[in-house]
């Protein structure tokens, strides 16, 4: 079974983002960029499935600017076999990305597509579901465990009330949640090897896909600031303040 994994280059999760003064977005110049953490989990899961003999090849895909090649190289260093960059320097939105991934899935014919459940920049949580819809495939979102079988895959999902297990017909789309695995660090020899692995660049037009955003961002603003409060010296003082000042107990 071939596995297709989609990854996104995002502002690193440790960076405290700053809203641009002109309100057009957040500052991304000279900011550390990394692979979206949920996508790292997706790559890791694919590599583990291959190591367990459940997968034969891992193709990693990204839709984004030239620099997303670095993100793809990271995935190759983690154990993916080859990479495809759908080069697009403009803003990407979930529906467009899902259409590009659909075109690649039709070409590559994977048995499984794994994506992060959401990217930590736009926090949309849509692409996997949209891809499954466009392909007419089953979707196992927010996965904390995946167990492939013959023609099906059991996916345990993190839901509001706890956990739910569903059985999906393959091919299917799975999106990862935090507890699926702990991604490995790429070793230096593997980083060197990754440089020699194939990385193909295509554009959206050659896939017959329109990546034009459907949503127009009118403004990006700072959220209301929460003023810090006071330190209390004792539990008694805390209880007194909660009762008489905050009046919440």
């Amino acid at each position, binding site marked *: 079974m071939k596995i297709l994994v989609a990854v996104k280059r995002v*502002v690193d*999760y440790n960076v*405290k*983002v700053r809203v641009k003064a002109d309100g057009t977005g*957040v500052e991304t110049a000279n900011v550390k960029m990394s692979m979206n953490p*949920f996508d790292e989990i997706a790559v890791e899961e694919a590599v583990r499935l291959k190591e367990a003999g459940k997968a034969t090849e891992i193709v990693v895909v990204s839709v984004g600017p030239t620099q997303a090649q670095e993100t793809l190289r990271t995935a190759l260093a983690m154990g993916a076999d080859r990479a495809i960059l759908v080069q697009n320097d403009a803003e990407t939105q979930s*529906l467009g990305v899902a259409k590009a991934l659909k075109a690649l899935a039709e070409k590559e014919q994977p048995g499984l597509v794994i994506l992060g*459940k959401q990217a*930590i*920049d736009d*926090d949309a949580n*849509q*692409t996997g*579901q*949209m*891809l*499954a*819809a466009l392909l007419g495939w*089953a*979707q*196992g*979102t*927010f996965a904390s465990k995946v167990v492939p079988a013959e023609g099906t895959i059991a996916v345990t999902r*993190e*839901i509001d*009330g*706890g*956990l*739910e*297990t*569903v*059985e999906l*017909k393959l091919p299917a789309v799975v999106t990862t949640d*935090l*507890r699926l695995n702990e991604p490995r660090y790429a070793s230096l020899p593997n980083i060197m090897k990754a440089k020699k692995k194939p990385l193909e660049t295509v554009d959206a037009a050659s896939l017959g896909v329109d990546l034009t*955003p*459907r*949503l*127009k*961002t*009118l*403004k*990006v*603003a*700072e*959220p209301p600031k*929460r003023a*810090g*409060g*006071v*330190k*209390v010296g004792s*539990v008694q003082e*805390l*209880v007194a*303040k*909660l009762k008489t000042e*905050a009046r*919440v*107990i």
Partner: protein
Amino acid sequence: MTTLVIAEPSVEGVKVPTLTTLGAASKLGGDVHVLVLGYSDGGQGVGAVAEATAKVAGVAKVLTADAAELAHGLAENVAPLVVGLVKSGGYSHVLAPSTTFGKNVAPRVAALLDVAQISDITGVESPDTFTRPIYAGNAIATVQSSDPVKVATVRGTAFEAVAATGGSAAVEAAAGAADAGLSKFVSQEVSKSERPELTSARVIVSGGRGMQSGDNFPLLEALADKLGAAVGASRAAVDAGFVPNDYQVGQTGKIVAPELYIAVGISGAIQHLAGMKDSKVIVAINKDEEAPIFQIADYGLVADLFKAVPELTSELGKAG
């Protein structure tokens, strides 16, 4: 202009996320219809929930879909049903709560309609313009949709729940449910608790890595029971296996905004703050006085939680 709200599946009564989603729908103007779906399996289920939904203020019509293939809200079966209703009913908007159910189903609906989805809206500026948090709530984007149908998920903490009474909507059965044959439900492990649900609790007591072990969570549970509170956790505590995943508050977990949030042994990573910083009053108990949680807490107590929490529980037990 008519909005279709996909109700949070329920076995009894109208769920809070449905009421807050209706709060967002009321800001759009126009009629509001609600789709109540599920599987009664011979019981009352969907019919009773639909009757309760018909009494909710501001609802013009309730559509019901009661079928075995809709049990457990499988997106592969729910989405085509919704798409069929949107096409036949001429809806201008489809809203779903930002629950794991809504987040699973709504993007599938949007893609089948070939429209964008606006995730986790926190404000309605106009029928085509919405605000939503990005970057873990560190920025708020105002976005405008030019799509013929606006599909959005609604952040429950950002909207007032509409009144559960005062309405008298017509109830109609909706046809069109079918098994896509792609997925089936196998099992679930749902946490059982007598405490309130995290997303609707008035008070929440949350524990982080500082709790050191799941064995220490009863300390928080005792405090929570004194306050009638729900118990939550940071990602660190969930990842360490102290508590199950459904306790997680944060960017990718549950978003909460109680009257009182007590963070115990939580350092305050931005991903956690994203899930609770809209709480009315925040209390932090942490032995590290440099912990970032103190920057947003209304009341900070620098103390060893293993002493402070039992003391707080006993102090609250005192009269007066």
